[in-house]
């Protein structure tokens, strides 16, 4: 049984001038115990979808059940069974009052979930220990470091041992050390509590490091989904770079006819290819070169990053809004991106009109 199931979830914001379709029909299914990442650039509709799933915003269309409760018919039931850790950067912060004590925040949170006082105290003790907050109970929230305060935000979302935890941009604004520390804690949520974790992020390495499955959202629609490894392989292939001893032109012909090779270029004696299932294709390639007496001097196999995936899907880099921000030199133009899409996800209208909004 799915713990989150959404069908055709959509939200249109109306202002005086126009209606903005922030989310346009999202279908998603999350199984119990999964860590699912919602990946997309700013303004893609991540937070709007999350706010709908957490009852903060009513969908303009679609249905969903979250933790066994119907989102529209039983929002209070949903609220009781989920934990929510809001974004800490932007118009609003992560949810703690700067002038409250850590202890007070944990206590009132538990009481608002109608837990008995003794159980709140026990949960607060366990959470401060698990999230490295022990000893900080008597501190004002404003005196905590960024990482500590973020861990407190997470602790507040877990006081009632929810079946599902929603984390909106959990590590945005943290330094790399605090970030990887928080990742360990998020992984621990599943290991220790069996919680399902649904998080949004625009950090590729975060999705890569944490998530069993990634949903890529752009312009309010999910444009791809799968395990990070699977997404990378399916959409981009692996990047294989070979240096041959002689006759690169001949090598180019041989390798170009190997199955699974998609893009191939030569630069001096270095040959660069995008290959589906690169590690499986390599032995065959080496044998083919060997038959013609071409010796390989060096070899490099690089997995594509989720950034490559995003670039391939949308023609834009996730890291910046500028399409040329990708550092590793693989920059397919719009035509190329569309061509590669043909054997990945079906292209949506959004992917070819990236600049329309």
């Amino acid at each position: 049984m799915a713990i989150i199931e959404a069908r055709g979830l959509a939200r249109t914001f109306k202002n005086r001038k126009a209606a903005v379709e922030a989310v346009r029909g999202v279908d998603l299914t999350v199984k119990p115990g999964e860590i699912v990442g919602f990946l997309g650039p700013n303004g893609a509709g991540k937070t709007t979808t999350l706010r709908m799933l957490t009852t903060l915003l009513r969908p303009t269309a679609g249905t969903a059940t979250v933790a066994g409760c119907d989102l529209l018919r039983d929002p209070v039931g949903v609220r009781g069974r989920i934990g929510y850790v809001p974004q800490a950067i932007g118009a609003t912060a992560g949810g703690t009052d700067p002038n409250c004590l850590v202890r007070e925040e944990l206590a009132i949170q538990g009481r608002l979930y109608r837990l008995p006082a003794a159980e709140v105290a026990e949960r607060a003790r366990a959470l401060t220990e698990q999230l490295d907050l022990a000893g900080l109970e008597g501190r004002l929230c404003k005196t905590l470091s960024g990482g500590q305060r973020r861990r407190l935000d997470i602790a507040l979302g877990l006081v009632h041992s929810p079946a599902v935890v929603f984390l909106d941009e959990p590590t945005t604004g943290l330094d790399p050390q605090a970030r990887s520390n928080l990742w360990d804690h998020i992984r621990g949520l599943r290991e220790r509590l069996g919680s399902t974790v649904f998080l949004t992020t625009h950090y590729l390495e975060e999705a890569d490091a944490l998530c069993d499955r990634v949903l890529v959202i752009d312009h309010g629609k999910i444009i791809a989904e799968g395990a990070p490894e699977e997404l990378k392989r399916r959409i981009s292939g692996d990047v294989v770079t070979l240096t041959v001893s002689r006759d690169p032109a001949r090598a180019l012909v041989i390798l170009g006819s190997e199955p699974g090779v998609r893009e191939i270029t030569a630069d001096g004696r270095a040959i660069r290819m995008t290959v589906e299932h690169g590690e499986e294709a390599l032995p065959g390639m080496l044998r083919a070169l060997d038959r013609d007496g071409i010796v390989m001097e060096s070899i490099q196999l690089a997995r594509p990053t989720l950034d490559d995936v995003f670039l391939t899907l949308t023609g834009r880099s996730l890291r910046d809004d500028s399409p040329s921000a990708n550092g590793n030199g693989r920059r397919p133009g719009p035509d190329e991106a569309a061509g590669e899409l043909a054997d990945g996800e079906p292209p949506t209208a959004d992917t070819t009109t990236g600049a329309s909004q």
Partner: protein
Amino acid sequence: MTATTSTAPDATSTGPRQYGTGASSFVSDTLLIFRRQLRLSLRNPAWVIIGLVQPILYLAFFGPLLAQIAKTGALGAHNQHDPWRFFVPGLLIQLGLFGAAFVGFTIIADWRAGVIERFRVTPVSRMALLAGRVLRDVLTLTVQATVLVVAGLAFGLRAPVVGVLIGMGLVAVVAVTLAAVSYAVGLTLKSEDALAPLLNMVMVPLMLLSGIMLPMTLGPSWLRDVAKATPFGYIINAMRDAFAGRYFTTVMAEGVAVSVGLAVVCLWLASRAFGRENA
């Protein structure tokens, strides 16, 4: 869900806990929010104290002038020997107009900190988020009013205990009105830069037209007519009657009706603002 089942690896176990939305959970939620807000006030009581300074200054530096005017009978024959019975009720309302009416700033700060949203994702009654805060503001204003009345006694106020208690009751009802409206407007605007000029624009004329400093009866008829269209004059006049020991007058009935009616309307408006999605 008990502590023992919460550690079970079965992620789908959501526990049998029911999240009531009934009256008892509203009351307990309200008390939780009230205690939280009260603790915050006690942690930083500066604003409670600053709010008191202004009325005390008026008492000290304007009251003596009023005492001279009272001798002419301009404040009404029954106030000829005790201008404080006239002045203290007005200052009590002023305390509310420049205290409880400005609590909207705190809700914007809470919203910015993400506290409002964090609470809205819990099963807490959304009306309790409003009611708990308003209750704290009623208590704050009541404490401030008590200090002001005691200061008035030091200056020479003499009024019956019952009358003072009635006056305090009216102040408490006014606190409900002003705090509720202020929260509703703050939560709707979500901007200190918009709230500050709006409050000043509304509160200063309301104060001038309520006859806090001088009775509106001194004014020309057009000014009296404009003043009659604003609510606080009725409430202040009722408080003045109470301080003078006259409890069963038309003025008293009007004042009670206006204050309670206004509180009901404002609470209703504010509850809509708090109940609205995306608040």
